[in-house]
């Protein structure tokens, strides 16, 4: 195998690990933001609801790469300002952190919509039963609404994850050495850009296929008793 890709296969696979790392960490952030956004839109006061709706609208209206470059270059200026003020000196904004924050922020909005739909799909009677037993609203959410909503959220969650994985390719544009970035380096060095971009395309399809298996397993697990 090493022969075929001129010894660059380990570098591509190392990049793939970076891609997966960025994807998983942004997923974590997006899940957190998604829960917060969905809760704000469903249970929050006027202010929280408006804030969450504005967040969702902005994310839907502005391209991901524009947000990413804004956070990457703008974040650097902010850090420089703070560094001057507090005397930290110069700190480089890590493209990995900028990428994870942007992607997490973007998909937080989509996860929020998914969770909102899923929570609204939970059987009202079950929630009322929880209240009737004297559970606090928080207890009802943790023990009844949340577990029941996961089942409804899986298809949307999986869809978001697939788009998220593809979006990670953009971190190569702000200089993070993910598999797309490494494919460019290897392809340019060996003058075989086609070979390496196609290879990376296949690796993305591989991640998708593995995710697909994982989703089937999750669906089976959460559809027990149906």
């Amino acid at each position, binding site marked *: 195998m090493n022969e075929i890709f001129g010894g660059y296969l380990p570098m591509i696979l190392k990049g793939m690990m970076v891609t997966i790392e960025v994807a998983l960490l942004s997923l974590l952030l997006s899940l957190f933001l998604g829960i917060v956004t969905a809760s704000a839109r469903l249970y929050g006061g006027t202010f929280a609801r408006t804030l969450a709706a504005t967040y969702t609208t902005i994310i839907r209206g*502005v391209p991901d790469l524009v*947000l990413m470059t*804004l956070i990457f270059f703008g974040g650097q200026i902010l850090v420089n300002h703070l560094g001057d003020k507090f005397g930290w000196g110069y700190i480089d904004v890590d493209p990995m952190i900028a990428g994870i924050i942007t992607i997490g922020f973007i998909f937080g909005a989509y996860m929020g919509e998914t969770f909102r739909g899923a929570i609204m799909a939970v059987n009202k009677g079950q929630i009322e039963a929880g209240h009737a037993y004297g559970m606090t609203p928080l207890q009802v959410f943790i023990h009844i609404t949340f577990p029941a909503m996961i089942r409804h959220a899986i298809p949307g969650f999986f869809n978001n994850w697939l788009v998220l994985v*593809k979006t990670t390719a953009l971190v190569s544009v702000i200089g993070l050495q993910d598999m797309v970035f490494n494919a460019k380096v290897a392809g340019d060095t060996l003058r075989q*850009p*086609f070979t390496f971009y196609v290879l990376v*395309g296949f690796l*993305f399809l591989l991640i998708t296929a593995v995710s697909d298996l994982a989703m089937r397993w999750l669906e089976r697990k959460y559809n027990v008793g149906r």
Partner: protein
Amino acid sequence: MDFSIIIDNLPLLFKGLGLTLQLLIISLVIGFFLSIPLAIMAASKKPWMSLPVKIYIYIFRGTPLLIQVFIIYYGFSQFEWLRESPLWVIFKQAYWCAIIAFTLNTAAYTAEIFRGAILQTPKGEIEAAQACGMSRFDQYRHIILPSALRRSIPMYGNEVIFMLHATVLAGVITLVDLFGAAKIINSRYYAPFESFISAGLFYLVITFTIVFIFKLAEKHFLKHLEQ
């Protein structure tokens, strides 16, 4: 923040806006017309007809558009026969590569939307068409497609917004679209907030316009489905 930079550079941003809209409209129009025969093939019961299209859709929906753009713009230069063929006039230009990549991408997504809608056509409508003695071609032309395309309008609206956002990749391969213009302003003045927030606002306004147009279209074309 100093937004006078943006005022001074408005002509550049509007030129970028022009290219963004141009790329968007050209790839959407060609992609739309490609997607209809593709969707009909993908909805076919014959595997030799549907399988190749399904593979095409799977590959283009399963890989990042950035990779597709890179394969066409940077990747194809690997082949000497292509560089020496007359086609090279097209493939050496970022503009055409962007249009080809965007078109193939939106054709795949749109074909998948239309395929779903075609398969959901009520059986009764098709049986009625058969009972009237319509040929397969007439069924598609008069019954299946008009109904399936109408039902696809909401999903297709999302695809149009997705494509608008996807056109930023033109700015990655050296073109000066809206995002490319913002990048130039940022590098000239080191003003990321001013440049990218302004570009973001432009995109936001176009998105709202597209949403509005599709709301009107839904009202007009989906009147018969209103409750």
